[in-house]
């Protein structure tokens, strides 16, 4: 039996509607949205490039004053007896820190029982200037250190004194001093554990 004309037209309309909705959905999913994302990304890049240009222009204009300020700061630093550790990587910084603490223990006549310098937990401090990747290198990193040793109270005092005012900057985060009860016959021996943060300037 032939279908009525109205039914055939309705079916055609439904089919056409389905095709249109599918086409629009495909167009939005694979055309409009990727395009919008690409557009947003490019706008962000344009904004970033404009900011970078403004920064570089300002920087170029201040070349002379920056040179003078840097030379002045470096002159002030060169007169200091204490310095922050400079290293190309945190591994090298950890190695230098370890060597420094061993030397310190030897000089203070304490015996190191445990020295742990972690490079994986190094933390970056300080922000970076907008559009200036080089200044990111200027931000400080901190190498965490756990240092345990024993010796007489004079040695412990010497260690603490050097940590506080020695040639390398070390920040004491926690400290535990304990009379070493295990060493019978040597009541003046003190065991101590100190947790430090060694600031490092990446080169």
């Amino acid at each position, binding site marked *: 039996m032939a279908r009525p004309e109205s039914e055939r037209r309705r079916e055609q309309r439904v089919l056409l509607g389905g095709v249109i909705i599918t086409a629009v959905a495909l167009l939005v999913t694979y055309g409009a949205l990727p395009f919008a994302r690409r*557009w947003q990304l490019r706008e962000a890049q344009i904004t970033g*490039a404009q900011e970078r240009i403004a920064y570089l222009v300002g920087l170029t204009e201040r070349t002379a004053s920056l040179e003078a300020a840097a030379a002045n700061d470096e002159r002030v630093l060169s007169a200091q007896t204490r310095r922050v550790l400079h290293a190309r990587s945190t591994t090298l910084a950890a190695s230098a820190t370890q060597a420094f603490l061993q030397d310190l223990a030897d000089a203070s006549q304490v015996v190191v029982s445990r020295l742990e310098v972690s490079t994986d937990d190094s933390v970056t401090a300080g922000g970076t200037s907008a559009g200036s990747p080089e200044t990111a290198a200027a931000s400080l990193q901190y190498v965490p250190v756990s240092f345990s040793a024993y010796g007489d109270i004079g040695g412990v005092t010497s260690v603490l004194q050097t940590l*506080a005012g020695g040639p390398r900057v070390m920040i004491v985060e926690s400290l535990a001093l304990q009379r070493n009860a295990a060493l019978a016959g040597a009541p003046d021996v003190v065991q101590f554990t100190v947790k430090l943060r060694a600031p490092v300037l990446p080169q």
Partner: protein
Amino acid sequence: MSKPIGILLDPDAARVLMRQGGSEVVRDVAWDPDAPEAMVEALRALVGAPSAFVVIVGLGFLEVAEPELPPLDASARQALLWRDADRYFPIAEPVAVACANGVAMALSATRLDTWLRALRALAPVCAVISSPQAYARVLGTGAAHVAVGVGEIGVVRAEHGMVRSVRRASMPRAGQSSAPEVVTSVSLQDVLRDAPTWREAPLSEQLLDATLSRAMRRDTRRRWATSGVLLVSALALLVAAADHTRSKQLATLQQFVEVLSARAQPAERAETRRSRAQAELAMLAEADARQTAADAPLAVLAQLTRALPRDAFVQRLEFDGQQWRVDGTADNAPRLVPLLDGNARFRDVRIAAPSQRFLDVGRQRESFAISFRMHTADGGARGAP
């Protein structure tokens, strides 16, 4: 795009409105309704190539009836009249029909098709209406005479621009008195000037046959589809152009950044040196401040040594970054807390664990565990919450 022009097809002439010497005049073009091609050529010479025609079919060609139709919408009424034309009109072939307010006007579809085919050689036809409809719209409300042909006159009554009735009558002979009728004078110029407004008239109001109506509906759809495609294409082109422009801008900016980066290298090196030096100076200042702070380990050791009595023996001293704790033994442990609390350098002195009394080589001793904080230079307590 220029407006379409109206052309009135009366039995004696085809009439168009023309601008001549700054004023508008109605020009008659003689024609043979059975062979309209010559009229079209004459029109071409007269008006050139207009953008489109609005065709007004004169009352002289129309059969008028007032059929009793069920209350349907205009399209359904028109379809009904197409189907049952022989019931209402003395035309024995398919008809083109216009229906307005119960007044139906018809003419042979074949004849109309012949005219439109001829006119389309000059310009597309965008609307076909009857002259009573055109007069009614100009008239508004009232009655007006409409030319019909030799020896006949038509009277169109209108209400709010819609046809109410159409009547054809013989012209009164000289000396013969006609029935008194108040009519408004409607100039042909006004009717032809108003014709372009019919361009967007619904197809159900126009004087069309079924085939023509379908064709015009198809044309309308095609125009909409073409316009839609053109609009989408234009938008796509616009977006593509904007996209291209922004990409070029970005490329230009990036090139400029590269040039500036090379130029700013000395400044950037100086800035890096300065930043590094300042970071180190700030760290040195902080380290110096810590060295002289009240809770620096050496300072606390010294303070405790001074504050605790000689019989106190410290077994453990601990600093967690905020608070100090000292454990040990003394002859009289309870008096240590008031002793430290009375010292201005110690703050928040508290007992951290219970005290125990015991004999040490025959001597009575007491254990103590005390926590405290140190006063800082600004008067606060280091590590205080």
